[in-house]
């Protein structure tokens, strides 16, 4: 049985594939992809509606990049089905419906930024104006620079420009802000808002919960090749339990502790209790009120990676 919040009655609203979602921008049905003995993507299903901004959230090795590569038709699933605007990924790309930014997308060496953009633009029937793309991607002043002389952040902006220039209906971005500094990142998401306001759909991957939280309407969380949660950012944050309260008590009644407001799960090692919380403030107040013997209390954040591991351990159990 898979841990799927909607299936286990958790408050996370599932928007994953249902049989009647015929007009979705993206539909992924039971897709699996293996590399040798490694199951990179394991029976993944998800759907993206028109105009939605979806974050594919997960730690490194979760299968995000492999999933994106299949969405773009750059690799084929071993089993399962992928539809982009009702057609195959390859055909969606050929018909200029999809623009994408890859982590390992390279640039034609020896040419200028402006030359490259103009060439790529010429491949589309209804592209954006060159000036508009340069502005959105914050490439102003770099048009005469050789593409192999760009910094990491500048290259990333050029990749964005190449993804946008065809004015695609769906934008797929693999860790788009990875090489960006804080300011560029902010500018990037601001530009993306302008893009979605025109009814465009965005699917991006990230391993930062904060980024997914700020930028996405919905988060699809992946770990070890599977979709482990699918819902609004606030529902995801609640279900994951990103804070932990540790304390010592003489009678660690686990089941009772888990019912405290704001608590998600509890575990004990001898007298030391670890309480995973979605809202550590409420949980702490309730703990102090109901357990006067609790002492050596500490509250800490946990890394997203640890949260993923907890969830995937839940799958294995």
């Amino acid at each position, binding site marked *: 049985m898979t841990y799927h919040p909607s299936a286990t009655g958790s408050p996370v609203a599932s928007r994953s594939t249902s049989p009647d979602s015929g007009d979705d921008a993206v539909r992924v049905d039971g897709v699996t992809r293996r590399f040798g003995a490694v199951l990179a993507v394991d029976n993944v299903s998800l759907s993206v509606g028109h105009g939605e901004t979806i974050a594919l959230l997960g730690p490194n090795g979760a299968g995000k990049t492999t999933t994106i590569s299949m969405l*773009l038709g*750059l*690799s*084929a699933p071993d089993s399962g089905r992928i539809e982009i605007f009702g057609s195959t990924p390859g055909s969606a*790309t*050929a*018909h*200029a419906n*999809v*623009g*994408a930014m*890859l982590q*390992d*997308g*390279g*640039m*034609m*060496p*020896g*040419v200028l930024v402006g*030359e*490259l953009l*103009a*060439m*790529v633009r*010429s*491949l*589309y029937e209804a592209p954006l104006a060159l000036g508009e793309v340069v502005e959105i991607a914050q490439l102003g002043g770099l048009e005469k620079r050789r593409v192999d002389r760009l910094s990491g952040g500048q290259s990333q902006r050029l*990749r964005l420009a*190449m*993804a946008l220039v*065809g004015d695609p209906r769906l934008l797929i971005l693999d860790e788009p802000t990875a090489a960006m500094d804080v300011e560029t990142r902010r500018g990037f998401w601001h530009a993306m808002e302008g893009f979605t306001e025109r009814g465009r759909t965005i699917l991006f991957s990230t391993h930062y919960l904060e980024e997914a939280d700020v930028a996405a309407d919905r988060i699809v969380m992946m770990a070890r090749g599977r979709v482990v949660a699918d819902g609004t950012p606030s529902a995801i944050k609640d279900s994951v339990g990103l804070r932990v309260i540790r304390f010592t008590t003489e009678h660690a009644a686990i089941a009772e502790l888990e019912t405290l407001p704001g608590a998600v799960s509890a575990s004990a090692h001898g007298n030391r209790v670890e309480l995973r919380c979605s809202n550590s403030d409420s949980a702490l107040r309730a703990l102090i009120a109901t357990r006067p013997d609790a002492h050596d209390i500490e509250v800490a954040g946990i890394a997203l990676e640890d949260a993923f591991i907890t969830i995937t351990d839940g799958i294995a159990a």
Partner: protein
Amino acid sequence: MLKYLALEIRRSIRDRRYLLLVAGWPVAAYLLFSTVFGSAADRTEGLAPTVEIMVAMASFGAMGGVLMASGPRLAMDRQLGWLRQLRLTPLSPARILAARLMAAMALSLPAIVLTFIVAVLVKGVSLPLWEWPLLVLLIAAGCLPFAAIGIVVGTIADGDGAQGLTMVLYLVLAALGGLWMPVQILPSPLQTVAKTLPSYHLAQLGWHIARGVAPALGDGLVLLAWFAGAALLAVAVSRRLTLRTA
């Protein structure tokens, strides 16, 4: 696709080191060989040595320009991820390969033209006016098999490997194909091999024109067969181009 083709060519022209290698080498070799082997007794094609060696070196340079523009560059673009990036545009894989093939073909021209100019200016070569454009055109067109061979090399080998493999192929094709010395001086089993090579038939095309006779159909057919073979192989291995990351 035309803009992509144009940009591929522009990128090559901008690469000075590459241009110097593909056009400078045959010109230098022409000056050396036509001076050292200047006596007509050494030649077997019934042409003045300065003319015979001019055609041979133009073919040699054209072949090198095409091989190097096609194979190592493809391997590099594959490793850089540029091909993967290009696959995200509406440009189909077939068109990408076609454009690269044509861009590589265009790189046969610098060596041909420069060798001819040096032959006329330095060695006083003179041919009937109509023969010049025909020579340029035929030698350039005859490089089609090398462009396809380069695509195969650039697909199966990575970076330095593609560079090395291209060099080996280039030198073997040139030496065995009779571009440096007449194939008649080779041992006879090697002569048989030599006469199946595209480089041999490329030179024959040019030598026919330089003699003022029509090129033999056989030479054209052998070159076409090499192109067809290499192109089929290229299609068979080209799945690697996009489905795999470097």
